[in-house]
């Protein structure tokens, strides 16, 4: 028990004194998660909107693939991306493996289906009269697309927040594509895993608190979005 209390005490001291290593790890995690979310949302939202609004051949196959990707274990996605980014892989020449950009790439692959799927669900749950109203007001296809996204904005924002939460708490992809290199690709989740395996809990606990604070912040945002929606 004393050991646990000591660990908590040291963890708080690390946070209180703005330990440079803790700060660097937190900053990298947030930066990588931010860019992964931006890229995932940039691709996932339009793809989701197109899937929800347009009927075309092969649509159900794409939806099935997206759903499968959502359920795929992150280590499998990490492995797939590793093969792509490794020196002998098709994207090996880009030199992204074991870099923050490589991690962004992997997390983008992880979160894009989430953003797309949640966008499909958000748009499909909209009032059926919306499309008719857009048409009778004389909206062009691009204007209709924008109006639909705008009407689904609360649910779409929730999709982005959920994607961010999934990204920042991810371990497998960050470990496989980042390599957990100290001061370069070490994120909160990879650092917690490493420190725990070494039996040194202070840094792990400190990062765990930050991660929990981020989770609280994200859920708070989601709560506000839902409140606004209702």
């Amino acid at each position: 028990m004393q050991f646990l209390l000591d660990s908590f005490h040291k963890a708080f001291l690390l946070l209180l004194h703005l330990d440079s290593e803790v700060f660097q790890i937190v900053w990298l995690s947030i930066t990588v998660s931010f860019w992964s979310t931006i890229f995932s949302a940039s691709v996932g939202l339009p793809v989701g909107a197109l899937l929800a609004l347009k009927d075309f051949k092969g649509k159900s196959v794409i939806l099935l693939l997206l759903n499968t990707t959502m359920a795929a274990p992150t280590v499998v996605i990490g492995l797939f991306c590793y093969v792509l980014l490794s020196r002998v892989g098709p994207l090996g020449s880009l030199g992204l493996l074991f870099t923050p950009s490589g991690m962004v790439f992997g997390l983008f692959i992880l979160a894009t289906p989430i953003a797309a799927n949640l966008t499909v669900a958000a748009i499909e749950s909209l009032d059926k009269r919306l499309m008719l109203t857009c048409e009778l007001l004389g909206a062009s296809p691009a204007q209709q697309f924008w109006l639909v996204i705008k009407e689904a904005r609360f649910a779409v924002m929730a999709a982005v927040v959920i994607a961010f939460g999934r990204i920042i708490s991810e371990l497998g992809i960050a470990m496989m594509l980042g390599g957990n290199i100290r001061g370069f690709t070490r994120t909160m989740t990879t650092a917690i895993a490493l420190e725990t395996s070494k039996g040194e809990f202070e840094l792990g606990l400190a990062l765990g608190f930050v991660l929990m604070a981020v989770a609280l912040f994200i859920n708070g945002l989601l709560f506000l979005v839902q409140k606004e929606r209702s």
Partner: protein
Amino acid sequence: MIASYSIKDVSFSYSNQPVLTINTLDIPASSVIALVGPNGSGKTTLLHLLAFLIIPQKGLLSFLGAKVSASDLINLRRRVGLLPQNPYLFKCSVLENVAIGLKLRGFSRHEARKMAIEGLKKVRMEGYESRWPNSLSGGEAQRVALARTLALNPEVFLFDEPANHLDLESVKRTEQLILNLNRNEKKTVVFTSHNLAFAQNLTDFVINIFQGQVVPTAPYNLFRGQIQHGGKVFDAGAVQFDISKTTERGTCLMVDPSKISFSTQEEFVNLPNVFHGRIVSISLLRDVVKIEALAGERFEIHAPISSDITSFGIGKEIWLHIGPNAMTLI
């Protein structure tokens, strides 16, 4: 006078089920036209066709003399304003809702807001600008949607069941609005209604729609049944009609109320399609006397006001004769 719309041999189907088949229909510019028919008769589909929300799968639709083509639908939609029966309001303020169509047409934010405020004034919704749709009553939401349509100032106004679910005062205001749009602004107004009295209060141009077709009379005396005896009899259950002199075929028979011959004494001896019953109501319907009679089925008869009806009274016996020219089979 140039027609706002001209329709020739137009048909439209949903899932191979024909919902609209119109041989010829012209809607004159600056006129008020009522599309009257029962629920599911195809009125709204026709209104959607006039709003360019759908295009005919067959036939020709012209708007102000120019053929309507699928490539120009967005521009055409911007020239007409359709107010649906149950309009949708966007999740934004009332003012934004009214301004949205204007912004889509390229008006600046400032201009659109200014015009939206004018639109709201026309429906007496000043002071509601910053309210959101979820804080409005059904009637208020309907008025906001009306303001949105009015603000667009289209060449043609299309109203789907504008009097539905409205109280008497609101119905009067809607009637006045339609008349003002036509008389003061020379707009073409087309509206649907299943209420003939509402339609006839506003216009003499009533187009009767039944089963997706323009029919010569409002479907008052409508009988469903089947043709029997080698095409000579239409069996509607309680009554049978001799249709040996009728060339049309179908599962519904309509009887034009203005073409029914009637008498309070036994007449029409040896004629087919004579029905005997009693008068159940007599009322005045604009320029005709409406008589309802129970003669196996309930029949509605329209008699000219000038005709001698002094001998008629509720409960009195009546003989009806329905000639071939009074019957339409569809």
